[in-house]
């Protein structure tokens, strides 16, 4: 039994764990891209640091819809249902705080260097 959720569909660790155990080309993010997963009402990793020009893709792996909304209005996803993805390209340096507007306890940030 999956200790996390009791749901086999969610028996997948955070993205960085998966990649470390399967370093195949298919699993690696394309150059200039990075990934954030939503699992159990948490953005993972909660803070991510990327170079300028990186496209960050969020994937919702919960059974409940979420959104990815910049606190300062820089980006705003539509509602993301299970397994849906949202991407945003960060062209400017800075720290971008964001949250889920449906479950505002869920927060994260992207640091662009």
């Amino acid at each position, binding site marked *: 039994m999956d200790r996390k*959720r*009791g749901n086999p569909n969610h028996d997948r660790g955070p993205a960085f764990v998966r990649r470390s155990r399967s370093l195949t080309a298919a699993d690696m993010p394309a150059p200039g891209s990075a990934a954030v997963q939503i699992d*159990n009402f948490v953005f993972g990793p909660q803070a991510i640091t990327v170079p300028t020009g990186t496209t960050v893709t969020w994937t919702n792996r919960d*059974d409940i819809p979420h*959104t990815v909304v910049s606190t300062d209005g820089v980006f705003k996803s539509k509602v993301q249902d299970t397994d849906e993805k949202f991407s945003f390209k960060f062209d400017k340096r800075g720290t971008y705080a*964001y*949250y889920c507007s*449906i479950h*505002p*306890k869920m927060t994260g940030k992207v640091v662009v260097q």
Partner: protein
Amino acid sequence: MLSYHNWDRRLMQLLDDGTRNKNHPVQLVTQNVINYGGQMPHKKQDLIDQNLQDLNDDGVDRRGFLKCMAWAGTGLVWTMSGGVPVSRAFAKSVDKTAVKGADFTFVQISDSHIGFNKPANPDVTATLQTAINKINAMPQKPDFIIHTGDLSQLSKPSEFDTLDQVLKGASAKQIYFVPGEHDMLSDNGEQFLQRYGKGTKGTGWYSFDQKGVHFVGLVNVANLKAGGMGSLGHEQLEWLEDDLRGRSASTPIVLFAHIPLWTIYPDWGWGTDDSAQALSYVKRFGSVTVLNGHIHQIMQKVEGKVSFHTAMSTAFPQPAPGTAPSAGPMKVPADQLQQMLGITDVNYLVSGRSLAVVDSPLGAGSSATANAGGI
């Protein structure tokens, strides 16, 4: 699914909470009993009984009440009379007669999440229909229904259409709605307002009177701030203060909103940041009942003359606070699902100004009142 390990941890936490707060030691424990649907291990039941006896100095037979809850795992009758909260097991309840002779009755349904199709409930339309059938079978036809939000899963027009189709079959034609966060996903709730909130203020708040009881529907799911919980906002709070001004303190007040107006579990956002302000406006009233949804399980608390109550969902259960990594849908075996979904009906007696709140799961009896008489 909950392990005994989790159960232990949560129980101890609850008992600890109860020991520290003698004003309302029992409500969270009660909720847990309901959640476990009578499957509580005996040792734990003894522990609760012992603890409750120690704390029980208000003349309410909570021990017996909880025992009955543990057997039945069904519902509870909760009355408020002259500001004195009294909880009873169904079997001891005067509310069997209260139901028959009530001045009026209404039913609360919540969290129908039409469009949700995952475990543990791939057919939330069917369980909503079961809830409506249960309401239609009540001996006293309810005057109206209150839906406390999350009508839909994704605010889709097709989901609202399906909801409307099912609700059309309800014997009570008047239905009052407040939105949940799921109903305001793509358009800041405009569609919700068009369909269910005509004539309301702001993002959908309003009040109405029914036979001397003043009802206020509040919206605490709009414009949520990063890191926060539910929020009413300044404009709505001002309106509420104004709405209640000048009303007699003897007027029974019923507040309803989607997210609980009391802090249940901040880590999961189960509370409303500015609810204390709202509650300060109702302090002077002799009888205040607060009805919420959002957490898909029954919890109640009494604070002074204010009683708080959350309803079961008609769609899927959610875990007790802190017993799972997140508030996501709780997967339960199919044969247990209907015990964890349900409706709440509320009876009001003008004499004594009392409200009786009765929760009943979808999977028991043909109606709440049949259930009340049957235990």
